[in-house]
Every structure is written in C-alpha cells, then in structure tokens.
C-alpha cells in the first residue's frame, strides 16, 4: 500500500466520451465535463451522469489544470465558476494542493482575491462580524447565483443554484458568508497585489496590473491607430462591397414553456481584420415568442460578443377586424467582429401565452443562419461610431488616470 502513490484518476465522460481527469480523487464530488458540460457524479467510482448537456463552454482566463504559486504554495486550477449577484458578476477559480487543501481565487471588476474557507466561526454583532480581534463591516445581503461551471468541486454544484450572500469587509481583507437552506459557510478573502495572479499563472498581459499614465497614453495612441486602420479598412470594404454569404445554419426544436436549449454553431471564420456578422432567426410562431441569446466566442482567446433577439408573432381579431403583429424573423447584427475562429453559442427558449389567446404549438422550430458581411449603409455609420468609441474611451482613461490609481484591468 505504501508504494502505491496517489494519482489523478483518468476517466471518460459517459455523455460525450471526452477524457476527464479527476485531480482530487476522494475529495471531488461533482465534475463538469470540460468538453460537453455534463454534470457527473464523482462520488460514484464509475462517474455516473447527473445532468446531460451539450452546452458550449466558456473557457476560463486561467485554464483548468494550470499551476501557479500564491502565498508560497503551488496550486492547481481544478474548477471554475461564473457567478452573479444583484448587480455584479465575478469569476471564481477553485485551487487545489494535496497537502494544503483548497483556496478560492476570485476575479471581480479587475481585482483578484485569494479566499480560504474558514475553520472557525466569526461572531456576529449587529451588522458587524468579529474574527481574530478584527471587526468587519457587513454589506446588505444579496443573492449570488451560479451562471456557469466547469471542472471539479468538493460539493454538489449546479448552474442556477442561488445562495444568500453577505460581504463583511475590513481594509484589504473581507469575509464572505453564504447561506443555503442547510448550512452557512464563511470564506476569508485577501486582496492580491496587482500583477500577482498574472505572474503566478504565467498569463500575458499580466492580470490585475494597474495601468500607469504612460500606458494609458500608449493605449490612446494605439486606439487612434486602430481606429484609423479601421476607417481605412471600412472604406476599402465599402468600395469592394463583398456580397453577403451564409456560412452556417442549424435548426433547434423548442418546446413552448420547456427548458432553454443551448446549441453551438460553428465555426464562424473571420479572415479579414474585421467583419460584420448577422445572425438571422427564422421561425413559425403563433401567439408565442422565442427568446434568443447569442454569444460569438473566439475559440482561442475566448473573447465574447453578445446579442439577443426575440422572434414573436401574435394575431387575433377585434372590432377593427383581424390584427397581427410581431417579427418572426429577427436579425441581430454584430457590426465588427475581429479576425478569428468563432463559435456562435445560441440559447433559445420558447414561451407562449396562456388562456384563450394562448398558442398551442407542440413545438417550435427555429432556424439560425449566420451571414457574414451584410448590408453596408447603416452598418458603415455604425462601424464608424464603434471605431470612434475606442479612442474616445482611451482619451477619457488618459484624462482620468492623472487623478488617482487606475482600477481598470480589462484589456
């Protein structure tokens, strides 16, 4: 027994067949397949399927399996969560080391924090939490929801799970309390200095690096150059005016009032520096509507462009005769998508009115077509405005960077 080293378990996803490595065997309870997004039961030796999925997965900024040293300990990224509160979104990485257990690496609004589950209970005094002689001031409670999850976790995790959360802060340290019906868990979080995480996990450009006035100036100049190139390209494109082209198409079958369906359509190859992409939905709805969410996700960089649309059609008759309204074929425009190889992630949900006006379709077919480089009139103006936003933003950053530390780290 002593000569048998502990090892990650190599298994296969029962839904899609992709290889799955369980890095913390014995501790991990849930695994979300990195290929198809299915939720698997790691407490079961054969990795049974809990929830089947074919969702496209956002790839975390720090890939699963990455290792980096924080606080003098080497950590491996084993899980990734995207979560949102009432008016904030953040990312959580679950870090693991076999001798030191788990940590949480939190990325919120450009800042990074390292968290550890508390093994002792803070004492609550009104809205203040007391721990180790320090007083932490509490925020208003808010709901924290899991929006996306991939990797492995030592608890049962699922998208949509919502807990009541309260943050207590004292300078660069804070406590987070999350309550569900069964238990309340406390995590202590410490702010990490800018650049720490990028350096630890070998990411470029360094994450969490505060920008100086110099780089703000450089960014401004770069953005002007990019905008100028963009205008030139737009003019060239306007002259050449390539025809629009259907590059991918797929049909989804939705059940009214049924669950949302997620479909990945791709690849969408953008060879030019920047192309317009239009997503056209075609459906036959009657007194029903289909909510469509689109995300164009670049495969390598995971850069996302999002849009949404509603396909709807209502008809009936009243004193003025028959009426109808709605658009069964909404089109959504991504005006300037940079060069790259993209997947279009479509999330669709069909709804219908209840009662006597209710639709009664058993199912709704939605055909999604992806068209590259469409109509140029309004598009040109729109693209020109989009191009102007970069320099305008950078100019504002340049102006504001003189007046204090810059917290912005998105790039």
């Amino acid at each position, binding site marked *: 027994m002593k000569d048998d080293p*502990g*090892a990650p378990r190599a298994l296969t996803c029962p839904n899609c067949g992709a290889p799955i490595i369980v890095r913390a065997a014995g501790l991990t*309870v849930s695994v979300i397949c990195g290929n198809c997004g299915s939720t698997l*039961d790691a407490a*079961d030796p054969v990795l049974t399927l809990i929830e089947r999925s074919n969702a496209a997965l956002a790839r975390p900024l720090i890939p699963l399996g990455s290792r980096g040293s924080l606080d003098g300990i*080497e950590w491996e990224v084993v899980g990734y969560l995207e979560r949102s509160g009432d008016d904030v979104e953040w990312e959580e990485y679950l870090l693991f080391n076999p001798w*030191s257990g*788990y940590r949480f690496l939190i990325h919120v609004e450009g800042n990074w924090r390292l968290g550890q589950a508390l*093994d002792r209970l803070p004492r609550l005094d009104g809205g203040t939490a007391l721990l180790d002689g320090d007083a932490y001031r509490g925020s208003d409670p808010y709901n924290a929801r899991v929006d996306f999850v991939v990797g492995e976790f030592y608890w049962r995790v699922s998208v949509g799970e919502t807990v009541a959360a309260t943050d207590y802060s004292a300078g660069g340290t804070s406590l987070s309390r999350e309550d569900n019906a*069964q238990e309340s868990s406390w995590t202590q979080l410490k702010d990490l200095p800018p650049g720490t995480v990028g350096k630890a996990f070998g990411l470029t450009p360094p994450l969490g690096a505060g920008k100086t006035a110099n780089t703000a100036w450089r960014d401004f100049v770069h953005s002007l150059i990019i905008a100028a190139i963009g205008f030139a390209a737009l003019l060239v494109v306007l002259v050449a005016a390539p025809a629009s082209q259907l590059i991918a198409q797929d049909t989804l079958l939705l059940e009214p009032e049924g669950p949302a369906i997620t479909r990945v359509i791709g690849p969408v190859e953008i060879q030019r520096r920047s192309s317009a992409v239009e997503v056209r939905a075609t459906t036959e709805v009657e007194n029903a509507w289909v909510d469509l969410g689109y995300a164009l996700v670049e495969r390598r960089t995971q850069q996302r462009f999002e849009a949404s649309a509603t396909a709807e059609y209502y008809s009936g008759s009243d004193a003025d005769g028959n009426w109808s309204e709605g658009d069964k074929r909404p089109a959504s425009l991504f005006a300037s998508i940079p060069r790259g190889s993209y997947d279009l992630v479509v999330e669709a949900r069909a709804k219908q009115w209840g009662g006597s006006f209710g639709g009664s379709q058993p199912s709704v077919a939605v055909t999604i077509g992806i068209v590259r480089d469409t109509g140029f009139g309004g598009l040109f103006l729109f693209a020109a405005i989009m191009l102007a936003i970069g320099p305008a933003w950078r100019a504002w950053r340049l102006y504001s960077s003189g007046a204090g530390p810059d917290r912005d780290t998105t790039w």
Partner: protein
Amino acid sequence: MTTLCPNCGAEITFRSIGLSVIVCDFCRSTILRSGDVLSIMGTAATVPDTISPLQIGTTGVHNGASFELIGRVRWSWSEGEQIMGGWTEWLALFADGSHGWLAEAMGRYMLTRRIDAVGDPILKAVAWGEPLTPGDGADLAGSSYAITDARPATVVGSDGELPFAAPKGETVFSVDMIDGAGGCASVQKHGDNVSAYVGRYVALSDLQLRNLRKIEGWPPPAWAAA
C-alpha cells in the same frame, strides 16, 4: 503483537495494546481480538483510492505527543439516493497508548479525541434524535460551539487497526460543531450509544509528518521532505 489471520493465515501485527479490531491487509477479514482469542467478524470493504498524502504508517507530532496512523475508516453522507460527500478518519495511535482521530474532509484536517462527556444537553438531543439545525449553539464539556452539520454518515470501507468494527453500510448519526478559534467537536450516535469527541483544526504542515504518501505529479512540499 504479531499473529496469524484466523481466516487466511497471513501475518497480522497489532501495534496498539488497547484497540480491539484489525482488518487483515491480505484477505480483508475484520478480526476481533478479545484477550488472546481472535474471531472473524466479516469482511471489510476496500477504501476507494483518494489523493490523500496520508497513509497507514505516517507518523507525526501533535502538542509534543508523537503518533502514528494505524487505521482508517472512510465515511460518506447522502441526501436521498445521492452521495453528497465523503471523508476519511485516520486512527492516530499516540506514544502513550492513547488514540485520537485525524479527520480529513474537504481538504481540511481535524485532530480529535474521545472524551467522557456527561450532562450536556447536546448529548441528550443526539441520543433522543431531536432535530438539530446548523447554526444553533451547543455546549460540550465546558466549551461553546455552533453546529455546522447534523446528518447520518455511512461506512464506505476500513483498513488497519480500529477501536470498533466498521462494516460497509454501518450508519451513525453525526453532529459536527466548531467554535470561533479553530476548536471543533462532534457527537455521534451509533445504535443506542452516544460518544463525544473534541479537538482542533490542524494544518498538515504543523504536524511534523513523516512517511507521507507520494502523489503523482506533485513534488512534496519542503516541510514533508525526508
């Protein structure tokens, strides 16, 4: 004491004086010792592989007392049909012949020892199966705690020397508690017996551990070298 397994004849060694049960490494019989008499109580289930750096034979020091891990029980807890989690309790035999438990759960470690508690309401509540809610306060042996969970736990498998037989599927009701300064306790009900354990959260790096298990792909940290 070294003797032969009454089932398969393999050599078995009791490292403790006081522990009454050992699982034969070879045939996995659970053997009860009563004086010099050995009897077979059944077969212990195998503990599924985990990535733990601990193993039977790992030695360490806690509060100046040296110990060796000589047995383990793997537990799980469920909600309905679904297993919600598992943890390992390592039996630590101290140099003075006493024993404690090094529990390994969710990447954290607790070292506890059984105490003879009497009179605390929490003992009665557990004995009578009264509903206990996480977050509620509970006093045990003069200390105040808050309940973190109260739920049934089931034996998955066992190895080595233990104070009791732990056949697969055996269920206890377990209530875990923590305080505000790293102290922890648990009260368990097994059949009609209620037992109490108190101790602390510990970091492996503070236990001067030796003879740790190697883990593929992970060089041991500096404190575990040697």
